């Protein structure tokens, strides 16, 4: 678990830390702009959720490599009451503010992979990933196959 960064989320000051750590790791890992900002923004939303709905929790940031891809995995864990209606939480409401004001759909749009598990006993875990192709040639191929 080298290079992993853990941020305790206890108060709203921790959000500032979480944003800064996320940006720092994204830049360190080699994300081009504007990705560090996108990642930091997504984490800001998720971290705030922890405080708003569980009071406290933790965010873990970890770089990863997967064949041709490199990126960051973000895991946000709390042991709060859980999100009762996950579907509603992930839906955009008409005013575009994000279901239940949780900002989850927005965070999902900023990241590439997004997974949410929640129940009243264990709490909520959000796992998000953002990644880029290391090899531009692979990206080109992917783009071509998408066009076909």
């Amino acid at each position, binding site marked *: 678990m080298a290079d992993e960064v853990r941020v305790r989320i206890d108060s709203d000051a921790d959000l500032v830390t979480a944003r800064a750590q996320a940006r720092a790791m994204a830049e360190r890992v080699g994300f081009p702009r*504007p990705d560090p900002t996108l990642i930091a923004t997504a984490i800001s939303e998720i971290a705030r959720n922890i405080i708003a709905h569980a009071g406290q929790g933790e965010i873990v940031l970890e770089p990863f490599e997967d064949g041709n891809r490199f990126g960051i995995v973000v895991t946000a864990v709390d042991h709060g009451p859980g999100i009762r209606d996950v579907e509603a939480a992930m839906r955009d409401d008409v005013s575009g503010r994000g279901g239940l004001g949780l900002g989850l759909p927005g965070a999902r749009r900023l990241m590439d992979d997004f997974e949410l598990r929640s129940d009243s006993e264990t709490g909520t875990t959000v796992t998000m990933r953002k990644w880029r192709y290391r090899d531009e040639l692979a990206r080109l191929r992917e*783009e071509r196959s998408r066009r076909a």
Partner: protein
Amino acid sequence: MDEQRTAEAGKGRSAEPSGGEDDLLQELVAYLRDQRTELREEWAQRISDAELLQVMSDEEIFSEATEVYDNYVDALETGSIENLQAYARELSERIIPRGVETDEVLGIVLLLRDVLARSLFARYQEDLGLLNRILDSYEPAANRIAVTVGVSFVEERERVIHDQQEAIRELSTPVLQVRDRLLILPIIGVLDTARARQLTEQLLGSIRDNRATVVVIDITGVATIDRTVANHLVQTVEASRLMGASTILTGLSPDIAQTLVDLGVDLGMMKTVGDLQGGLEEAERLAGYRAGDADDAETS
């Protein structure tokens, strides 16, 4: 190469006990090496007859042919793909700048396969059973070689094209400041997501650096864009609005206009103008250089 033997129906093998598969392979490889000079020349002749590799001189073809032949037979013998891949890539690196095309590379490899196969026919035609077993050894190996060389060439070609595109991308997309607070971004050529991303960065950075309140993006030189790029373009326009600049899109081809409509983009909101000239006039009006109703930059 035993495992490569395909059990094709209709091959009809007689119960020839002479030697195992390995021995057969060694035998045919030895024969091909022995016939090297003649077969290589025959192959070169076939290449010439098929009018392939016309960008290369006879001496060049001969020298490359020698190397290809030797590597081909080595690959038959060892079954090693790695060496062949490395060689094929290196060969491709040499001949791609010369203008050799994919069909030529595939063509000459297949011609070599045929020349060698024919010579095997000639040698073993007296004994059909043995011939069949020889071919059972030869064919899968030869086909794998053809595929390996072809794929290596194509991949190398893609790499070259990609590098060239990168270079062009870096040179292109100038941002022109025509007036105080007014920028023009003329785009020519293929607009893919990589370029769109670079464009966004350049545009938004220019807005900030040049303190532009109006930007004209001219895509007269772009024939078509896919949905992802179109979406990206729309987001770029919205982002520039958030920075306090208005964006005018000019030179939309009917195709692109349709793509935007399909995306559900409200073209009324987007400020598109037919041609660059009209776009510039509108831009000047917006920037306050002309009389007329100038909207304040709003976020919606």
